[in-house]
């Protein structure tokens, strides 16, 4: 059924694909962003429809409900302004004390809001694309978070879009620290890798004081993630490798299944 010319054609296609598979990571990332750029008109259309539907549904909210929400937001705003004033005072005091001791000064987080445009269609990865890129000052390896906690880091950055690897993906390892001071590495959950809200924390210390309910935050070692970003809460702890090390299951603070907008931490 297949002629000789068909076989030559097929061999050429296979060789081309094999060459693509051998591309280095950076080039492949840029090529992927260029190809996925074909979906941009569809994404714009989808976003416009989403916004239009949102506006249409907002028109149905009664005025009394809007006034109630407005009053609540004013109240929250005043409370947050009071907290901010207190935090500013603490921040200044902290900077002065750090200067006296000779420690490095801490810098405030600079963040930029991004919208999630697509999620990974494959079942064996955890990643998504956002609508910010190098044009907005982004570069690879920046931390991505929500108000609840860490989400992931930028894997590849195009001009207008970037790919984010999420916590729970095998390509992302984060150094974490428990409130009691134990440190470890956050990895994809070995017991239930497909459960989006759960990850594992491999603790470095054998006799750990970590307990369920304690908070895990980023350690800051490694230079990718600044210290103190909330990661999640310990659910349970179990021995690993015949009791030589300890593994804690951590429930992520951020809801990975419902990500629509994320914050990118700028350098």
């Amino acid at each position, binding site marked *: 059924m297949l002629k000789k010319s068909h076989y030559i054609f*097929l061999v050429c296609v296979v060789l081309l694909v094999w060459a693509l598979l051998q591309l280095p990571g950076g080039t492949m990332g840029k090529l992927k962003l260029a*190809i996925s750029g074909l979906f941009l008109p569809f994404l714009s259309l989808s976003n416009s429809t989403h916004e239009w539907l949102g506006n249409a549904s907002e028109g149905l909210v009664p005025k009394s409900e809007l006034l109630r929400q407005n009053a609540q937001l004013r109240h929250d705003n005043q409370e947050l302004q009071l907290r901010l004033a207190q935090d500013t005072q603490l921040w200044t005091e902290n900077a002065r004390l750090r200067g006296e001791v000779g420690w490095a000064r801490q810098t405030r987080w600079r963040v930029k809001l991004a919208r999630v445009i697509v*999620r990974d269609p494959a*079942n064996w990865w955890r990643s998504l694309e956002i609508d910010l890129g190098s044009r907005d000052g982004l570069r690879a390896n920046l931390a991505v978070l929500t108000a609840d906690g860490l989400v992931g880091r930028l894997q590849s950055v195009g001009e207008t879009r970037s790919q984010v690897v999420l916590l729970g993906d095998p390509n992302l390892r984060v150094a974490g620290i428990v409130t009691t001071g134990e440190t470890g590495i956050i990895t994809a959950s070995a017991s239930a890798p497909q459960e989006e809200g759960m990850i594992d924390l491999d603790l470095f210390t054998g006799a750990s004081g970590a307990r369920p309910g304690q908070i895990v935050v980023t350690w800051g070692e490694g230079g990718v993630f600044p210290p103190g970003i909330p990661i999640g809460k310990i659910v349970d702890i179990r021995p690993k490798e015949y009791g030589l090390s300890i593994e804690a299951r951590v429930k992520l603070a951020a809801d990975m299944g419902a990500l629509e907008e994320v914050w990118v931490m700028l350098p």
Partner: protein
Amino acid sequence: MNWLPTIFVLAAAFVAVFLEASPGLFRNLLGAQIDLLPALMVYAALTHGLTTIVLLAVCGGLWFDSLSLNPLGASVLPLLLIGLLIYRSRDLLMREHIFAQVVLGVMAGAAQPLGTLFILLNKGTAPLLGWFSLWQWLVMAAGSGAATPVCFKLFDRLRRALEYQPVIQSSFRPDREIKRGRV
């Protein structure tokens, strides 16, 4: 060659990949995303030529991989292999029967992720795999099986709507007309 059917198949693949990448119902409900490309490949391999099969495998695979953390090209070869295997034996397959379409769809939907994972593991990457992957695999196979007859129905309707319909031969022949009455 009429390129219109090939363009329709490629457009369907493009929309399918876009829908798979959108946060959707299936992913939240079933815990797995259904891949529609194997179902499209079954349709293309049973009804179109080699060019359409290769174009679908290359374009569909690259579009899918561009939105995923898969290395670029990882989905192309399994799709191409599925298409070629069906194409080689399509004269023996009862392509009009829904049961045959479902079985082929299930087989293609089951083979596609296995082939991609084989390439990923050989490339040294470590995808998320566990016992739950079996469930995802079953959902993908069943989803592909269900989507294949839908593809056939959809494209058949499209073809009928856009192609010239064959002229129905009438049994009337003027030379056989019986003339009644006197000449």
